């Protein structure tokens, strides 16, 4: 996370001929982390049934991330390592947000407990680190030059945050709130 170029360079050097199923390893970890985080933060406990349910329900987040990744990864560049291995390595970039999800679940800001502010401050780390890691992915894994890697990273982040705002906005009924502010 701190030195993404070196890490990705090392990962690319490792011989790995993985199948489509093997490519699901890191996305699966991301989905399980999100599912477990939701279960822990909402109930302060975990059980197999609860985590299975939350993981399946929230796996749409990972599926969207896969879709965005497939959209921004150039096909020709992905052919270097194979699409499955490329996707697998891409999901290494999820680590900062995965750790934040776990921190949020453990921190558990409840009304008589911990305050929210450290949680939002901690979110600055994945917000800052993830674009760096994704840019390193484009450079080291796909072999893109500095400028093209930066553009692809920008597109990735725009798509990710745009989708987040659209989904979150629909969930919280953002439009009446905007009207309220404007009034």
């Amino acid at each position, binding site marked *: 996370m701190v030195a993404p170029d070196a890490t990705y360079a090392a990962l690319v050097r490792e011989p790995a001929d993985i199948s489509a199923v093997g490519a699901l390893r890191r996305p699966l970890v991301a989905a399980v982390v999100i599912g*477990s985080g939701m279960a*822990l933060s909402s109930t302060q*406990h975990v059980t197999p049934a609860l*985590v299975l349910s939350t993981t399946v329900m929230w796996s749409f987040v990972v599926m969207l991330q896969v879709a965005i990744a497939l959209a921004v990864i150039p096909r020709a560049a992905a052919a270097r390592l194979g699409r499955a291995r490329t996707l697998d390595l891409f999901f290494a970039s999820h680590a900062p947000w*995965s750790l934040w999800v776990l921190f949020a679940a453990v921190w558990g800001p409840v009304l*008589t407990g911990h305050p929210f502010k450290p949680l939002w401050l901690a979110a600055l780390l994945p917000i800052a680190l993830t674009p760096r890691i994704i840019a390193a992915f484009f450079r080291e894994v796909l072999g893109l030059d500095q400028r093209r890697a930066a553009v692809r990273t920008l597109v990735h982040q725009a798509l990710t945050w745009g989708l987040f705002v659209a989904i979150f906005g629909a969930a919280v*009924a953002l439009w009446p709130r905007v009207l309220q502010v404007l009034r």
Partner: protein
Amino acid sequence: MSGRGIRAAAWVFFAAGLALGAAGDRVAARTPPMRAGYVVLAGDFHVHSFPGDGALPPWDIAHEAQRRRLDVIGLTNHNAMYSWRLARTLGWMSDATGVLELPGDEVTGVGFHVAAIGLDRPVPWRGSIADVAAAIHAQGGVAIGAHPVEWYRQAFDATAYRALDGIEAAHPAMFDTPTSRLEFQEVYLDAVAAHPSIAAIGSSDYHTWAPIGVCRTYLFLPAGNVDGEGVIDAIRAGRTVACDASGVTHGPAALSTLVQDDCSSDADAPPLGEIASVTLASNWVTCLALVTLVLGGILD
């Protein structure tokens, strides 16, 4: 140990954490108490669920509600009822837990929110609180003024209170600042002045983190009418008491006296059937296993 070995061990620990969690979760059926000839149900009528801005789908919320000693909940996503429809389509309703789940939404208008319980379809959000309440009543539901404080307060006037069936007198926001609790009390007194039988409602506004039922409502139901209709009738008739997270009741004095002890004990009670030490161990084992899996993913 190789990276593959570490990851395999982490998955084993993750599974062990979940198994421990199941061992520490021995929730049993709850029998609602009787007070003054009424069956007293504990309810939470401001609950967000998945898909929506809540973390859990309705079937998991029902289980969590059972753990938190609730008998009835209202599903209230913002201007939407997708989670209710999803649960109904899948046939995964709350029958197994015994918790009554009522369909509704949180009508999110311009300058106010109203929790609507007992709906068939979402209520249009444009218009005044009185318009929204009329649309809710047209479906046979009840309208509850949601967190009527701070910037929402100005929309709650005497006309609004008369149109509503209930008002949130206890809500987690009452612990936000030193004056928040006072503002909730003022609003409740204003509401009672305009509409003497308005129901005092305690709600958790559950999304995630703050436990469901952390603020709750006690409803007084006739013994032969313990169902969704009975709950709606109790709110409509104002036979309710709100209970806040510090164990203080809000509502008609005659009814509040009957459930003061329940409110005090529910505020401090751990989840029903939970073995705290086992749950704590389960949570830590699970989290550490997941951190190992995440970091192992970086290092391959």
